[in-house]
């Protein structure tokens, strides 16, 4: 029989022991001071990406280790979304990995807050870099990131899918109206079996490009917003007539397919995104060939395009193995053989030595040729965006998705984003 006293004691003992068990975590860490072939220095390297990139990165690491037997690199990767939450947790605990692949969106958050190593204090060769590209890895005169490669925005399309629908391949000189008509055509000719594309107004960088096409700066020099609520409404209105039609894949499908993209899953015929996604899309979709053309613009003399460092290499400010970390970064950005491994899957190599040492064929050549073809339209690379930009980009994506679910109106969406943005800017002021 159960009586009150025994019962409550049992509960108390049970809860206490459960808490004790939970408290029994274990942790260990090792650090080597000096490295030799017998007793190598260990450094951690982490990156985001898919299986394709993981395989290439492992090859690059193996190559590095064979050339530098005194250093051992422990690789580790996740997808993009999880990547930043993991870094934040590690930064809070004071234990960021020694070397990391980095994104421009988060450079200010960590660099300005002294989490990243000033790479000007270690030996990394940047002679072969285009001088206009390096500032995008710098904040207040200190170099926190070295670009591995460059990428630019483009419209991908699958020529085989278009051919099967009897639609002519686009040449990339299109206004937004023409682009929307193209998407509609794909959706209606395939009877909804293949969607035209994903809602491109949900991509922050495409919005940024549209702002540049209209000669508006996204952020002012003092870290405020350079555009108005009306600009944002106008932007989201661009595809208002396409949402819910076969021109644009439904948000429900997009969510189901995540983490793969609708384009990589062969659900859409086009995708507006960075040109270095080629390798990933090819391996995801199994397509023979994918092609690239410039993004739409209502002013064909101003495409708003720019080369962005597609990825940066950074080191933790607290790394115990500065020299080993620097040698690994130098190797990853400069070594011609690394270029051969990655081709254009990280973007077009930023260092000339790496670019010259790499042979680009087939689809890789398409990416290089694309960047060459837009050269005359290119403007300066953007400075590292404002502190908290990663959050703004994420909420832009989330609110655009709510828009596609029909959960908010365009006015409501713009209000919601501006409220968050103003709150964030005030927080970090």
């Amino acid at each position, binding site marked *: *029989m*159960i*009586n*009150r006293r025994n*019962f409550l004691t049992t*509960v108390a003992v049970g809860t*206490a022991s459960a*808490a*004790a068990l939970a*408290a*029994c975590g274990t942790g260990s860490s090792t650090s080597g001071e000096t490295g030799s072939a017998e007793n190598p220095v260990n450094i951690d390297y982490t990156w985001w990406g898919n299986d394709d990139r993981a395989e290439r990165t492992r090859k690059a690491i193996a190559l590095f280790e064979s050339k530098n037997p005194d250093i051992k690199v422990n690789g580790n990767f996740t*997808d993009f*979304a*999880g990547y*930043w*939450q993991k870094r*934040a*947790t590690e*930064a*809070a605990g004071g234990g960021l990995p020694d070397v990391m692949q980095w994104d421009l969106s988060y450079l200010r*958050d*960590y660099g300005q*807050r*002294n*989490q990243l190593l000033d790479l000007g204090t270690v030996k990394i060769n940047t002679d072969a870099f285009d001088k206009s590209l390096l500032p995008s890895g710098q904040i207040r005169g200190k170099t926190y990131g070295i670009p591995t490669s460059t990428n630019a925005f483009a419209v991908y399309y699958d020529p085989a899918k278009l051919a099967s629908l009897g639609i002519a391949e686009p040449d990339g000189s299109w206004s937004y109206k023409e682009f929307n008509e193209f998407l509609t055509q794909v959706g209606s000719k395939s009877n909804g079996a293949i969607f035209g594309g994903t809602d491109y107004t949900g991509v922050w960088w495409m919005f940024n490009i549209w702002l540049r096409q209209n000669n508006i700066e996204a952020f002012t020099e003092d870290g405020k917003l350079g555009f108005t609520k009306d600009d944002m409404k106008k932007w989201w209105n661009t595809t208002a007539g396409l949402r819910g039609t076969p021109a644009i894949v439904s*948000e*429900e*499908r*997009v*969510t*189901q*397919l*995540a*983490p793969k993209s609708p384009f990589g899953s062969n659900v859409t015929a086009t995708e507006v995104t960075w040109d270095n996604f080629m390798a990933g899309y090819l391996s995801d979709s199994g397509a023979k060939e994918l092609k690239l053309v410039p993004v739409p613009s209502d002013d064909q003399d101003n495409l708003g395009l720019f080369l962005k460092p597609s990825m940066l290499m950074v080191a933790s400010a607290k790394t115990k193995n500065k020299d080993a970390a620097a040698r690994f970064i130098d190797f990853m950005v400069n070594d011609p053989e690394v270029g051969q491994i990655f081709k254009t899957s990280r973007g077009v190599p930023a260092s000339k030595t790496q670019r010259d040492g790499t042979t680009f064929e087939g689809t890789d050549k398409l990416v290089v040729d694309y960047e060459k073809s837009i050269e005359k339209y290119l403007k300066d690379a953007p400075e590292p965006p404002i502190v*908290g930009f*990663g*959050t703004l980009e*994420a909420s832009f994506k*989330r609110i655009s*998705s*709510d828009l596609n*679910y029909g*959960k908010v109106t365009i006015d409501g969406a713009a209000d*919601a984003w501006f409220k968050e943005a103003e709150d*964030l800017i005030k*927080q*970090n002021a």
Partner: protein
Amino acid sequence: MTQSPTLSRRSTPSAPTLRKSKQRGADARAGYTFLLPWLLGFIALTVGPMISSLYLSFTNYNLFEPPKWIGLDNYTTLFQDERFLQSVGVTVSYVVFGTPLKLAAALAVAMLLNSKRKGQGFYRSAFYAPSLIGASVSIAIVWKAIFGDAGPVDQGLSFFGINLGGWVGNPSMTMPMFVLLTVWQFGAPMVIFLAGLKQIPADLYEAASMDGAGPVRKFFNITWPMLSPVIFFNLLMETIHAFQIFASAYIISNGEGGPAGSTLFYTLYLYLRGFSDFRMGYASAMAWLLVIVVGIITLIFFRTSKSWVHYSGDAK
């Protein structure tokens, strides 16, 4: 035990008392020594972080720079935050629908498994298994695949002519999916119910049968009141547990709380605020609000329990 000390105390009052208190002191010391590892862990890993989180909840803290004191600002802005209100709504509906259904399933299966039949051990482990692996990440991934586009659930339903598509991307189907997931993991409360059912004397049921009571009557007049302390315990624990749902929500929604915020559970939003937006002070305020609310709910449960929970030996 009861006799001899009383006798000795009478004959020589001072010495044994001294010996006894010495003995007591030694017992206490031994007790505290054994308790020490737990106590240290409790102070360092629970009390310490709680105090610092309480402090942080009154600050603006971005993980990298020293916290800035802002008083009650975090708490007041919470109630103007639409996503916060959304997360409260999502979590409350999960607790309200998930917990009673889970307990009902647990009790029903426990009663089935309580009767003697062949292969009983196998069934007990089979039903318990999901809750053993249930907390793991792998189950959330499997669940996502089961309820995804063209997954088994989608195909099974379309066989019957119901075309809902995948549940994962449909904002109105994600909550049923999460409720099903928690109901399926009824193993832990089931085992406790089973232990409780074993404690009910069989002669009560025999006597009731003699008086001509049917199964329904037996359930409400014997099983329910006799089991009420266990029901109370399970209800309390599962409610608290349900408020803390995190891992499955994080995995199934890719850590975003989507689609359209339909899986933005309280703890997930708390985590996103802390670790995605670097708003640790805000997240701490959310955590403390959760502690307070769960505390109040527990108190209400204890207060109302007097009217329906019966302990043996209580005067009725």
